[in-house]
């Protein structure tokens, strides 16, 4: 049952990823992105990481892609994007980096870090065996990683304030700039 679920979810993830790249319509691309994100959430569930799965769906599959769609709808999807590159070396650089990423993934796939064998760092989390997924994550987050957690929160507040400042400034000078919404979206994403 678990291998079957894994193959279905993995196939859906890949199909969604291909769809994002190949779809002509940006709204269809966004929908394929949702498909990928939800399938990844299923993969998390198979790994018993239910909290990560829930956060994946609540934050990524609903909130962030909805904001993407919101921006796409407000800007109008009928506009044709020019396929000519403004930066001439962008395409070869992207291909080179893609090949490097693929090589890294293939190397990692055979590595213990992915296959889940015992490693020196594979010690169970402090307080293991106590409570479920949510309790354990909360305990670690509010004890060992408190500082990083709070810094992330401050970062998000700065991003939101920055987006508001940008929106106000451009709004006062006349037409609002389209990129403002995208800046806000990226702030949430970070």
């Amino acid at each position: 049952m678990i291998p079957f679920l894994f193959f279905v979810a993995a196939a859906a993830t890949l199909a969604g990823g291909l769809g994002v790249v190949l779809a002509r319509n940006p709204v269809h691309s966004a929908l394929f992105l949702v498909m990928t994100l939800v399938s990844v959430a299923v993969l998390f569930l198979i790994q018993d990481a239910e909290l990560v799965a829930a956060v994946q769906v609540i934050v990524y599959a609903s909130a962030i892609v909805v904001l993407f769609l919101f921006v796409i709808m407000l800007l109008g999807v009928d506009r044709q994007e020019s396929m000519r590159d403004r930066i001439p070396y962008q395409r070869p650089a992207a291909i080179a980096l893609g090949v490097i990423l693929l090589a890294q993934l293939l190397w990692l796939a055979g590595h213990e870090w992915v296959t889940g064998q015992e490693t020196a760092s594979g010690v169970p989390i402090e307080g293991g065996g106590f409570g479920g997924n949510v309790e354990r994550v909360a305990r670690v987050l509010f004890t060992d990683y408190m500082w990083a957690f709070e810094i992330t929160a401050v970062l998000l507040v700065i991003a939101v304030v920055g987006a508001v400042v940008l929106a106000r400034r451009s709004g006062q000078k006349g037409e609002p700039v389209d990129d403002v919404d995208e800046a806000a979206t990226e702030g949430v994403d970070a």
Partner: protein
Amino acid sequence: MSPILGADPLFSDGIDTTVVLIVIVKTIIVFAILLVAVMFYVWFMRKVIADMQNRIGPQKAGPFGAFQTLADGIKLFFKEQSSPTSADPPVFKLAPYLAIIPAFLAFAIVPIGGVVTVAGHETYLQLADPGIGVLWLLMMSGIGLYGVMLAGWASGSKYPLLGSVRASAQLLSYEAALGLAIVGVLVHTGSLSTRTIVDQQAWDGVGSAFSQWYWLPAIGAFVIFCISAIAETNHPPFDLVEAEQELVGGFHTEYTGIRFAIFFLAEFMNVITMSAIAVTLFLGGPSGPALGFLSADSWVNVWVMPVFWFTLKVLVLLYATVWVRATLPRLRYDQLMSLGWKYLIELAFLWAMISAVVVVGADQGWNRWVVVPSAIFGAGIILAVLWACIPRRGESVEEIR
């Protein structure tokens, strides 16, 4: 499979054919209950509103018009389906299902009754009890948003698009308030699992309805939850999504026949699910007095009474939503946004802070009569500071340079 189905004792002895069959039967029962509940809720709503407006309401189909919704459903099923030439066909067809499937799935975590024994297996009267519990509700309402949003976009028509842009902004805003209101009660429960939350609110005399059920200890969260749940389900007075005077019919203007019926079904199903979740979180779920003259193990007390109390509480909340629907005029769009972002979210945050102080105080055994007023006083100071920061009407906002 265990993480999503959760801590149900059904799975403690391993999974065999009987267990799988029990899960399938439970799934079908939940599906059927929801369909029938929507059918009667629509009839109930029309009858109650008719009474409040001195009308008679549906009366021809069946006794007291009870089969009116069924007749409407059959009619819609056989009507022609049309789609505009400017529509995006695959997304146009997909959108109703994106609305209805999450509406069904969200109900899976609601505990309808207590622990029962079926074919030698102990099981909860609820479809699933995942460890992430109420987060499941937020997941499903997040996915359900796509149905509304894509329906409007895929119609390829102006009013549906405007309706769906409104809808997505409204649902996103109030999802934040809804989640924070749930935080306000989770501080008390200390668990996300709906079954654990219901067990904590077990019936123990009339006093327990005030001290054990979370509606009074988490009264702030309860009020904010109710308001944002009504907004999240696009129920009046928050039905700007389909404001007839401005938007024809909102996102489902171009939908006809069974596809329109599916949107309709999903909307009312969400109302029922939200009421059931409110009962679970705040009103003790299926807990209530058992029949004293029967033994605690008799089938009436095990099967019937919890389901009876659960249904009764859900009906009370549903009546309240109908009452609100019949009474309040629709909000303006800016009022909607300012209520959500300027008031509900802040109040929910403050409530979570107060609750945290009170819960820690109870844990440490501090004097309750000192802790509670000082927590409220501290929250009041924060509220006053926030209030001073909100620009008044007519007051110009300082330019940011």
